[in-house]
């Protein structure tokens, strides 16, 4: 069963005139697939992510996650926000275990997992730190560890590295790839950065604006696992040129 099935999905915001944020979206994502939604701001890529997360509801069409239609957010669809959205009054550890804790899970059942996920994102030594004491990249790692601890099989990431400096962004991309290699979740990654989309994704869906549509699906033929040197190969640049041409018109 595909992880995500979307058919003829529309999202219109009422008003004068109404805004057609998304029109006729068709999208299938397999379990364990890593896709990127690429497009300029205002193309509806974040709206699409919010619909999958059930932060908003579609105007019409079908949206199934693991075969089920949802009308409320839930732990099966973990979201990594642009600005991390950690609770500033909780330390790293408390943020990471927030989900299982409010569910009433016994500490013994989630502590090992939370420790493991913090280790994967490299924050084992920062459990007692408050979010304000962390750098932007570290905050996003907490955001990732938080949904991994939650056990989300679908990860929805809304330009999570957009606000980071170039070097931190690269190391976060590598970290995300290694997490994905280890745990194989389904990832939907929203970005406007072509390099980022190519480096990370199996398939790139290029979106166009007003109304928001999926204009093109691009398969990334680069082999896995990928490393940073892949971003300077001829194949990478060839693909980037193709995407640039498509985005321009």
């Amino acid at each position, binding site marked *: 069963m595909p992880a995500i099935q979307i058919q003829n999905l529309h999202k219109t915001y009422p008003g004068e005139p109404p805004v057609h944020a998304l029109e006729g979206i068709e999208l299938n994502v397999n379990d364990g697939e890593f896709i990127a939604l690429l497009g300029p701001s205002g193309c509806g890529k974040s709206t699409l992510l919010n619909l999958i997360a059930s932060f908003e509801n579609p105007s019409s069409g079908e949206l199934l996650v693991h075969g089920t239609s949802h009308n409320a957010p839930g732990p099966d669809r973990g979201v990594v926000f642009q600005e991390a*959205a950690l*609770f500033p009054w909780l330390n790293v550890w408390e943020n990471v275990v927030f989900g299982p804790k409010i569910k009433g899970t016994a500490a013994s059942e989630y502590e090992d997992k939370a420790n493991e996920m913090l280790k994967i994102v490299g924050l084992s030594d920062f459990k007692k730190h408050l979010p304000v004491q962390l750098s932007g990249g570290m905050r996003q790692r907490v955001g990732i560890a938080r949904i991994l601890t939650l056990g989300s099989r679908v990860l929805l990431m809304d330009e999570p590295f957009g606000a980071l400096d170039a070097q931190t962004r690269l190391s976060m991309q590598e970290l995300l790839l290694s997490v994905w290699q280890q745990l194989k979740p389904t990832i939907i990654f929203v970005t406007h950065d072509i390099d980022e989309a190519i480096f990370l994704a199996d398939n790139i869906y290029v979106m166009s604006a007003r109304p928001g549509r999926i204009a093109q699906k691009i398969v990334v033929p680069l082999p896995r696992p990928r490393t940073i040197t892949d971003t300077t190969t001829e194949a990478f640049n060839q693909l980037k040129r193709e995407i640039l041409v498509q985005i321009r018109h």
Partner: protein
Amino acid sequence: MKRLKVFLNGIAVPIAVLILWQLAGNMSNMAGVLPTPIAVIQGWEGWVFGEVGMGLNAYSGTWLANVQYSTMRVFQGFTLAAILGVPLGLLIGWSRLIAQVFDPFIQSLRPIPITAWLPFSIALFGISDMGSIFLIFLGGFYAIVVNATQGARDVDRNLIRAALMMGSNRKQLLRRVVFPAALPNIFTGLRIGLGISWTAVIVSEMVAVKSGLGYVLWDAYYVGRMDIVLADMVSIGLMGFVTDRLIVTIERFTLKWRFLQNH
């Protein structure tokens, strides 16, 4: 060295005013209207340390008792305002239905100054502690409610979304996200409310009860003890300052995450 300089800069004007005031007092015969700083301190000393029940000085030794009366009333009225105001404010900010039911009621009463409630309060409670506590409660209540409401409304939408995504129900959301996120606003409301509560206690004690710093203030004025009036004014300011510092200390302890942010 730098801190000493800042301190000296800060006390220069107050000291200059005190010296000028003392000199002006020595050179004129205004003592009945405006006693000199030294006379105020002498009067205050008797008020604080004098023996109680000396016939010639009705205030002798009664300072601490009056401070306690006023502080106790502020504590009672303000605590009541906080206990009712914080949860109500959060709920108004959080739930559209509760806002629709309570907000018009609160907003229509809020513009009535607490001083205007004095006759009503005396009619209702008579000359008693309750009348005073009622006014103090009212004084603190609005500021606390309005700020808690604002705090609940200003919660970052993504924090709510993150909590929902992790499986929070509405009750958990209110307790674990909205309440802590609103705490900075809640503390602002508590500080403003406490200030108004001190105003309310003085006003109410002038009229509605026969003890406390507000009562002494008015009574001393009537018998021409301006030294006590001034000592009383400074005492009120001092108590307001001390209780405000108390809340700030609690705030700094509770909102460690926020004070780290600002550095």
